């Protein structure tokens, strides 16, 4: 009985090993690999949005695209090595936590193209994809201030890291700018750039926390809330939807599309068009005349539509506000308005 089992086992082992090693190798397609950070590809945030860009490239450009999830810090290099060994043409890493490993691989594989979301330049063959989210957050803050009836707007984050906080910084500055322009006194709950601290739920998982924090905000009189915490924000949207007399501001993508069930309470969304940046990067690499990144980076701004805000819910703000927002957008592009980046960086020193 046991002997037979052994024979069977070893047979299975041998065959599976033989088959397993045959994997890999793609046709003439451009091979693009994406390495997520620990949130995984279904984080409802930057991993998901970046993957959307790759998916679009698969559909529209006919590339061979795939992703590898990371569960722990040491997985990044493992996954990068996996793609390097598969001789991927472009490797996209998502999140600043992968910067060190990306830099390392980029220097060792100068012929491979890399792109990293949320981090700046790392070398000639790496394209940094960064976003001036404060600019978009500024517009959202301005719109929020215009939309509030209670004079209080709120925001909170998952964990206090720069890519999260920068949304909140722009938001606060936008509200203040509105106050300045309209002589109002709209208050921001949940973030203070000067203190570099605010309301954080401490994770990107517990949607219930998002709901409870939203309820507390509403009880304290806020009627616009911007959650910067991945799926936790959907808990906020649910709370606001049930209450009905407040607004949510989506982040990363247009929530009226990605979370359509909440579209009635979504004032607008702060767009961080990572998918566009990723898609553009893939497209550039696929182009016939592509000659390497040569240290060229991508900074998503209002100017190049790398960041922006989604259309504002109709009737939510007074009629003139859209025009004002257009003007502000132009002023930001022209560098006439401070969106808070400088002060925020200073507070980090």
């Amino acid at each position, binding site marked *: 009985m046991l002997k037979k089992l052994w024979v069977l086992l070893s047979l299975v082992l041998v065959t599976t090993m033989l088959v397993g090693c045959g994997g890999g190798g793609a046709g003439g397609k451009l091979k693009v690999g994406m390495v997520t950070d620990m949130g*995984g*590809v*279904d984080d*409802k945030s930057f991993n998901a949005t970046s993957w959307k860009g790759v998916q679009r490239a698969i559909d529209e450009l006919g590339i061979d695209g795939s992703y590898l999830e990371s569960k722990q810090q040491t997985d990044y290099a493992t996954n990068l090595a996996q793609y390097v060994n598969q001789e991927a043409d472009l490797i996209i890493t998502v999140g600043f936590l992968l910067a060190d490993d990306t830099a390392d691989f980029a220097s060792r594989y100068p012929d491979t193209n890399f792109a990293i979301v949320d981090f700046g330049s790392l070398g000639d063959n790496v394209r940094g994809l960064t976003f001036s989210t404060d600019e978009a957050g500024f517009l959202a803050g301005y719109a929020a201030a215009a939309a509030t009836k209670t004079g209080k707007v*709120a925001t909170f984050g998952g964990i*206090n890291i720069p890519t999260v906080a920068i949304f909140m910084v722009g938001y606060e500055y936008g509200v203040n700018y509105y106050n300045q322009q309209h002589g109002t006194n709209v208050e921001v*709950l*949940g973030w*203070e750039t000067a*203190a570099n*601290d*605010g*309301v*954080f739920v*401490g*994770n990107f*998982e*517990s*949607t*219930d*926390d*998002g*709901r*409870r*924090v939203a*309820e*507390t*905000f*509403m*009880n*304290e*009189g806020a009627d616009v809330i911007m959650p910067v915490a991945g*799926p936790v924000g*959907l*808990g906020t949207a*649910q709370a606001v939807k*049930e*209450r*009905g*007399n407040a607004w949510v501001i989506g982040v990363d993508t247009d929530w009226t599309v990605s979370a359509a*069930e909440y579209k009635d309470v979504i004032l607008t969304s702060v767009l961080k068009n990572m998918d566009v940046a990723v898609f553009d990067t893939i497209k550039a690499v696929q182009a016939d005349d592509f000659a390497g990144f040569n240290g060229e980076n991508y900074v998503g701004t209002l100017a190049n539509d790398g960041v922006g805000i989604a259309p504002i819910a109709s009737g939510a703000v007074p009629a003139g506000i859209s025009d004002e927002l257009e003007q502000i957008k132009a002023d930001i592009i022209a560098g006439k308005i401070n969106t808070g980046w400088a002060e925020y960086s200073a507070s980090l020193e």
Partner: protein
Amino acid sequence: MNENSKDTRRARTWGIVFLVFAALMLVLFLPGTTGSQRTTFAFDLELSEALPIGSLTFSTQGGLYLLVVLAVFLGAWQLAKGFKQVYLILGVVVLAFVLAFLTWAARDNSMNMTGMLQATLLRAVPITLAALSGVMCERCAVINIGIEGMMLTGAFTSALIGSLTQNVWVGLFAALSAGGLMGALLAVMAIRYKVDQIIAGTAINILATGLTSYFSSRYLQSIPELNRPPTFVQLPLPVLSRIPIVGPVLFTNTAPVYLMLILVAVIHVMLFYTRWGLRTRAVGEHPQAADTLGVNVFKTRYVNVILGGMIAGLGGAYLVLSSVARFDENMTAGRGFIGLAAMIFGKWSPIGALAASLIFGFADSLRTNLAILRVPIPSQFLLMAPYLVTMIVLAGVVGRANPPAADGQPYEKQ
């Protein structure tokens, strides 16, 4: 005589503790205030049916002094005469301290007390259900450390089945079944196979995390329609919901919240006043004794552990069907473990578990309010607070809580 002197010494210690609290209020909160500052506590909630009672605005320093005087008075009385219910008075003094903290934090600002109490209860719901699950299992001497996994399973199932059927009750029922199934797995391992119960629970946690995450990434994420369950609507109870403060907090809730409150009461009554409860407690304390009187120890344990699993499943379903209307990986975020701590803190009684969970819920909602009021404590430290509270509570205040005598021991027919 010796025993008496020890008692007086303890009484004196408590008196000093109360005075220290008073001194802390003076030192910590008073210096940062000015005479012109005013604190506002609001009590009305928007959209609630409760009769409005307005808000309370008072001088910050005045409020602080009042609370300090209260604590000093209680401390002095304790030193001089001593209270019979020391722990009750301790509660009052701690409450005074928290109020002083809030008075200080909300200086030149306002805070909605009713809102905070409401958040306290709602945040306590999943923790209480987790703790109740623990009570059910441990009262018959099966340790359940797999509550977290059972909750996750319940949450996942309720999201999936709720979405498929678009019926909250079916979703809830599915979560109960899934939780019960996980409970049955624990029961079989603990009772039939006599596996170390903590290890069995750990296995359930790992397995449930893996299964829910795996199926979530295979199905729920790619097909959003599978992750759009309906939710329970609020059912304000007639008349009761119009009472100020109490109405919005207690009587304007969804069915699972009422269900939780009813479960606490029912399990408490069942445990201490019915045949099932008597047998359960006997099995947890002295299974042989129960066995020799013809009580089926194994059956009692199977039933209780499966029921415990169902309650944990309900806790998961609450998060989905009564809170956020979707499942996300690891969305329980440690509530099962906090519930376990609440069970111990509550001394294995349902009402105690509720009380302990409310303390955790309060710590949670308090830190949100404090962060909104821009208390200059880094958010990370505010986030640590509930865990620190748990440790302090376990180490000091409850001292040695006594679990059911046979807790964790598999029963063998001799």
